[in-house]
């Protein structure tokens, strides 16, 4: 086969930042769906994560547009995407879908935390009191009727949130899947694959965040909660990987003109990140380890360890998957006669260091958020909230309204 790429394809146009964009929105969608499993579907075993998952989604949501903005050639025209949207473009929907989802997540968070905010406002002093008073937006009624309304609103918002989260991320898949010029992207399965891998990555992220936060707080992890995550992770990982394989199998079986290029891409250009990291470490090993994590004959410590290792592997695997789609797709020259070269950069724009910085931002935001709005909840059978938890180390007085 001749080796030739079009002269304009020498530079890979979408770099690491565009790899981060679907990765981060995927984590948002996945984390949100975990919170909805509790709030909408009443999966009470996920209660310890019901709040943590929501503010994790929010923290990542704040950062989601950053890599996109940083990538734009004309940053100051970014809002034109909302002011003068071109409606045949999938990308034109970004501003609206993102804003809608952000408002939804903020509203849900506010309604969930309203009772706590009012309580913190009434028990704190000085600046903290002013701060929580502002956060409460003046809605200070925490009578059982009002709380019941809050609860209903949360359920409704969480229910609207599920299709929205699916849309938010399915749409990202559509951005890639609808590009007919690129044989590795162009498939109607792309939105579904993106969505399933998003859920997978969100669950995996929560497993890790749960582990790290429990360790920092010197608390035991709730085993039923972890096992529930383990089960969901396994099911969604299986679905995601089946569809990913189906796509490649279908392309290979049809063996159309582009297949030689796609096969060459997977076996010669990105075998390490595709076969190794995405499929091997990210799918195969977790698929085997996760059921062992649920095996009751093993000790709780080992079961936790297996689940956490699987979570970490899946998280890395999904990042590799985003890389293989975004960068891999651009390596195939549209001349169908060669592959472009991707150059890893360390510091410059879209380099590894700036990417790691963007990737760590949501975690910084999250660690600030858990101080303001503590999300810690006991297990399904335990008390509603950990009694120790206070924001900014405020000394709480016994609640007037009491626990529901």
């Amino acid at each position, binding site marked *: 086969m001749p080796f030739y790429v079009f002269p304009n394809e020498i530079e890979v146009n979408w770099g690491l930042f565009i790899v981060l964009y679907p990765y981060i929105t995927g984590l948002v969608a996945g984390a949100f769906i975990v919170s909805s499993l509790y709030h909408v579907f009443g999966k009470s075993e996920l209660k310890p994560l019901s709040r943590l998952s929501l503010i994790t989604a929010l923290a990542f949501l704040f950062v989601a547009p950053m890599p996109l903005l940083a990538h734009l050639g004309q940053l100051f025209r970014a809002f034109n995407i909302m002011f003068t949207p071109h409606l045949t473009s999938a990308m034109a929907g970004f501003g609206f879908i993102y804003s809608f989802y952000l408002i939804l997540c903020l509203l849900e968070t506010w309604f969930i935390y309203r009772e706590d905010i009012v309580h913190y406002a009434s028990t704190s002093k000085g600046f903290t009191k002013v701060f929580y008073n502002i956060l409460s937006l003046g*809605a200070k009624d925490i009578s059982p009727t009002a709380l019941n309304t809050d609860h209903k609103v949360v359920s409704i918002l969480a229910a609207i949130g599920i299709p929205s989260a699916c849309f938010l991320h399915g749409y990202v898949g559509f951005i890639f899947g609808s590009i007919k010029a690129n044989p590795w992207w162009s498939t109607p399965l792309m939105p579904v694959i993106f969505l399933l891998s998003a859920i997978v990555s969100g669950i995996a992220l929560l497993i890790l965040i749960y582990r790290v936060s429990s360790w920092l707080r010197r608390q035991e992890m709730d085993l039923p909660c972890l096992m529930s995550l383990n089960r969901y992770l396994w099911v969604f990982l299986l679905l995601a990987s089946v569809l990913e394989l189906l796509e490649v199998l279908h392309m290979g079986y049809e063996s159309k003109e582009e297949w030689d290029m796609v096969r060459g891409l997977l076996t010669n250009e990105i075998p390490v990140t595709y076969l190794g990291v995405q499929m091997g470490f990210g799918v195969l090993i977790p698929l085997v380890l996760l059921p062992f994590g649920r095996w009751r004959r093993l000790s709780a410590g080992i079961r936790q360890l297996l689940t956490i290792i699987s979570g970490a592997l899946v998280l890395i695997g999904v990042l590799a998957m985003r890389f293989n789609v975004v960068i891999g797709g651009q390596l195939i020259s549209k001349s169908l006669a060669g592959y472009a070269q991707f150059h890893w950069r360390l510091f410059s724009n879209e380099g590894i260091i700036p990417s790691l910085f963007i990737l760590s931002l949501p975690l910084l935001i999250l660690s600030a958020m858990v101080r303001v709005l503590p999300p810690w909840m006991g297990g399904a059978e335990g008390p509603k909230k950990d009694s120790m938890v206070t924001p900014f180390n405020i000394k709480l007085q016994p609640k007037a309204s009491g626990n529901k």
Partner: protein
Amino acid sequence: MVKETFTRRDFVISATKVLAVGILAPAGALPAARRISALETAQQTPVPQLWRGKEWSFLIDIEKCIGCANCVGACKKENGVPLDQEVYRTWVERYLVDSNEKVRVDSPGGGLNFRQLDIKPEKQFFVPKLCNQCHNAPCIQVCPVGATYKTGDGVVLVDRKRCIGCRYCIQACPYGARFLHPILKVADKCTWCYHRISKGMLPVCVQVCPTGARKFGNLKDPDSEVATLKKKARTRVLKPDMGTKPNLYYLGLDEVVK
């Protein structure tokens, strides 16, 4: 003094306020959107004088191209495309097919740096490439802000003041005709020298072609060379299966060319 009870009525009022804030940002878009639709109506009613009776088309005779790449250099200079960077509005590909049907393609420096090769191919030819100005252009479809559009006389242009530099159009073009302008940081591509053809001149690549391999003209003028050739000769377009309906036609195009 804060109200002690929070009634359903209060909730509705607060929720309305929150919603109002949420809607405020997108609502800012309305005046801008209205301006656009006004522009569209203006375009629909009278065809601008500039476009009347014109449908530009481009035709390349492969047999005549000698690979001198005069066109590549002239295009870069005419259109302010940096000479020292790997970005091209037009380029020339060299195809060498040996006796085993093995194809070798290259386009060093877009064709500016071809070097003599020691191999003796069975068949060799040059293929100049440029924007196909598709009738059904994927780049127009995917542009999120409508910065890329089609003129009434059949040319796809980029509005440099609107382009946000997202590079989605570069991904969507099946021909690799688009690139991000390294200095202006907006999408760029061949315009068939729209600034020249609107004044009755030829695109610069056509002008400098020493063999007449590149032909440009008005399809609505039956006497133009392009119109006659398109009627009589057997032409082909690139990647017809993409459904882009290119407006750039080739004479004598080999099947190995993608």
